[in-house]
């Protein structure tokens, strides 16, 4: 039985609600009062959430293998028949269509749910800011783009959403555009993302050329046989032995797509924009740069899992990039003093975990971590926003402290999120992170070890943040100290809801070894099993229960160790951080300056680009302007001088010559024209006399002859 129902039929409304309010805000927003903006913009996202929940429930009504709903609204691009590398032509088409399957259900619920909470929070956070309607217009536009990305049924439409979220990210990072650092950060994010997007576009083209289709699947379409999807096309080419497991072209597609994911999801080497993106308002950091947009890369790779599973080298590459990014970003987070920067590096690190999961073939675990991460990282950012709100805009951890009792709700929810990200049982982070580490261990103990160390570092820097901000003595300025206050309910209620989700969000993936049944993984299995029979779920079953318990205990203990270390450093002060930093000054400086990567990129890429610009500028000034423009000008002037000379002496000369000739001839005739009528009268008289005399004579002669 294929899933049907009102909400599924109206799936297209989910991205449309935020688009409508975004258009309203951006075109007419200036005239709408703040209360109206809040109701409209938050309401539209809320409505999307309701429709998303409805649609997912109607999808769940079907049996697991039929849980795919696809609806093509209209054919969007139809270039006609395309010659494939195999030799036969295929009808390529990109639809404007929406696809709801278990994978996009998870994403759509996370995006609309967390998005809705963040919108509610923004009402309180942005209350005193200028450009209120502009902020919500961009946020809603982002929701539209993100939902298009998530619900797209083909790669090209996904790319539309992909670019849309990139644009909104740029607009929102640069929201305080009068601040130079903010507008620079926006540009940096946009440009770095372009590099990744180039890879994504190439990946799409290569897919289209190789498989002849960019639709993810034909399942759920009325004409499932005629309209091929990537999944079906892959299966067909494999069956025809046109492509095999590990074929170079598949590896190429996978790597190109991963370049796109690297840009969007801030992986090495394209991660540099994300820390700077913290210039945007905090709800933006929470929504775009933690919970939703940056996970688009993970979603895309998971969506294309069929290709990845056939490209082992690409998988290994993804896993290595992921795990290196994870530990690299975590090491930078250890020493940051800006509360949002710590969270930014933490986000990069957690995204690295997700890619590690994808790389080792545990797609479900990656998506699972994506979801739990969306809960607790959104909560962390919103909590940080609440702290910044309370501290009158202060973001430096060294100037905080002792906030635990002053802003209790924020502090407690923040602590919950910190425990969740550290991976403490039974909070959400524990289940997802543990699953990833378990799968990594099966693939390669080396990958596991790096991820394992990263887990300890995560616990350390998050508790460092917690202790520095909320415990100890206050290090704030006096006037800041006086104004510390708990945030309004519009901000604290979303915090509490997210705290609840951070606790229970992981329970849907309660692993079998702890008496659960891993429902999340089974739910996603139909989408993530690729074209081969072997599935992630079967792999899990392949190793022993004892090993799983050992790994869980190891994760827990290293998280505990990280927390204990942070406690010693920043709570009891038994070990002074300054001493440790002093012991390895070089390492400390290296971490503090983020491995000098920005400087390296500046020297290697930015300055070289500028040099190229200078060179081209010189070329422009000397060759294009000098020879081209000025030369053309000179030539035109020269030729016009020639033409003027010709005109003046030859054309005019001929005319003048003719006129002179006329003048010469007319001179004697002119003398007759005295202008005095008496002389004319005289001439008339003379003429008359002559004529009379002549004709008189003629008449006389005539008469004479007659006679």
């Amino acid at each position, binding site marked *: 039985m294929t899933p049907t129902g009102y909400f599924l039929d109206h799936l297209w409304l989910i991205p449309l609600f935020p688009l409508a309010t975004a258009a309203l805000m951006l075109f007419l927003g200036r005239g709408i009062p703040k209360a109206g903006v809040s109701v409209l913009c938050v309401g539209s996202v809320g409505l999307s959430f309701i429709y998303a929940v409805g649609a997912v429930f109607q999808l769940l009504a079907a049996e697991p293998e039929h849980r795919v709903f696809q609806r093509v609204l209209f054919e969007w691009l139809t270039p006609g028949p395309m010659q494939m590398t195999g030799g036969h032509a295929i009808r390529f088409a990109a639809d404007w269509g929406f696809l709801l399957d278990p994978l996009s259900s998870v994403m759509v619920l996370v995006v609309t749910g967390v998005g809705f909470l963040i919108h509610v929070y923004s009402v309180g956070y942005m209350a005193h800011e200028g450009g209120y309607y502009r902020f919500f217009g961009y946020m809603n536009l982002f929701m539209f783009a993100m939902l298009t990305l998530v619900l797209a049924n083909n790669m090209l439409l996904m790319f539309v959403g992909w670019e849309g979220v990139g644009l909104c990210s740029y607009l929102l990072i640069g929201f305080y555009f009068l601040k130079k650092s903010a507008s620079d950060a926006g540009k940096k994010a946009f440009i770095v993302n372009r590099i990744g997007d180039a890879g994504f576009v190439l990946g799409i083209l290569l897919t289209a050329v190789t498989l002849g289709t960019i639709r993810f699947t034909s399942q759920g379409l009325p004409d499932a046989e005629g309209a091929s999807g990537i999944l079906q096309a892959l299966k067909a080419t494999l069956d025809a032995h046109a492509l095999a497991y590990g074929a170079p072209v598949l590896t190429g597609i996978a790597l190109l797509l991963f370049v796109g994911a690297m840009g969007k999801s801030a992986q090495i080497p394209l991660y540099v924009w994300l820390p700077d993106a913290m210039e945007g308002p905090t709800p933006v950091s929470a929504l775009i740069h933690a919970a939703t947009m940056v996970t688009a890369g993970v979603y895309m790779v998971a969506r294309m899992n069929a290709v990845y599973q056939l490209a082992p080298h690409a998988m290994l590459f993804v896993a290595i990039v992921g795990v290196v990014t994870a530990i690299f970003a975590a090491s930078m987070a250890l020493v940051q003093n800006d509360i949002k920067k710590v969270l930014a590096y933490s986000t990069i690190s957690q995204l690295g975990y997700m890619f590690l999961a994808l790389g080792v073939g545990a797609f479900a675990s990656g998506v699972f971590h994506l979801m739990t991460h969306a809960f607790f990282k959104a909560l962390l950012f919103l909590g940080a926003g609440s702290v910044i709100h309370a501290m009158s805009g202060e973001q430096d951890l060294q100037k905080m402290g002792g906030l635990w009792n002053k802003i209790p709700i924020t502090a407690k929810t923040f602590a919950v999120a910190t425990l969740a990200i550290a991976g403490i049982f039974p909070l959400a982070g524990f289940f997802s992170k543990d699953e990833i580490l378990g799968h990594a261990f099966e693939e390669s103990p080396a990958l596991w070890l790096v991820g394992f160390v990263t887990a300890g570092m995560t616990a350390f820097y998050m508790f460092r943040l917690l202790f520095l901000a909320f415990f100890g003595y206050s290090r704030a300025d006096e006037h800041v100290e006086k104004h510390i206050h708990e945030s309004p309910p519009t901000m604290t209620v979303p915090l509490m809801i997210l705290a609840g989700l951070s606790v229970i969000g992981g329970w849907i993936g309660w692993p079998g070894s702890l008496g659960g049944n891993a429902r999340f993984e089974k739910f996603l299995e139909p989408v993530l099993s690729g074209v081969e029979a072997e599935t992630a779920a079967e792999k899990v079953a392949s190793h022993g229960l004892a090993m799983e318990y050992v790994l869980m205990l190891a994760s827990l203990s290293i998280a505990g160790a990280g927390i204990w270390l942070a406690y010693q450093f920043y709570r009891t002060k038994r070990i002074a951080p300054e001493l440790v930093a002093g012991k390895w000054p070089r390492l400390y400086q290296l971490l503090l300056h983020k491995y000098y990567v920005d400087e390296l990129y500046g020297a290697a890429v930015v300055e070289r680009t500028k040099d190229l610009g200078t060179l081209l500028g010189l070329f422009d000034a000397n060759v294009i302007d000098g020879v081209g423009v000025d030369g053309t000008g000179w030539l035109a002037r020269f030729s016009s001088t020639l033409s003027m000379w010709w005109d003046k002496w030859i054309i005019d000369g001929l005319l003048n010559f003719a006129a002179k000739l006329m003048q010469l001839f007319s001179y004697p005739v*002119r003398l007759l*024209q*005295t*202008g*005095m*009528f*008496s002389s004319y*009268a*005289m001439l008339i*008289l003379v003429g008359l006399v002559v004529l009379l005399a002549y004709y008189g004579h003629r008449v006389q002669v005539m008469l004479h002859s007659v006679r």
Partner: protein
Amino acid sequence: MLPIGHYLFLSLALFIIGVIGVVTRRNVIVVLMSIELILNAVNINLVAFSRLYGDVAGQVFALFIIADAAAEAAVGLGIIIAFFRNRETVLADEMDLLKW
């Protein structure tokens, strides 16, 4: 009845006086007056022959010419007044605007 030669002689004398006046005088008013003389010389001719042949058509023609002369004098004097207002002269040799 006087023979026709007397009339013709008078007519001829008037005509020649008129022509000489038109050709030699500089003052345009005098020229106009001379033209009147020429016209009247023609009138005398017409009336004389009309009487000689007993045909009234010649006298009718003479009446037409008198009317015509009056009109011509009115228009000519009008032009001269307009010209005088512009140039403050009635001398024909200074009327050289159309020369060249």
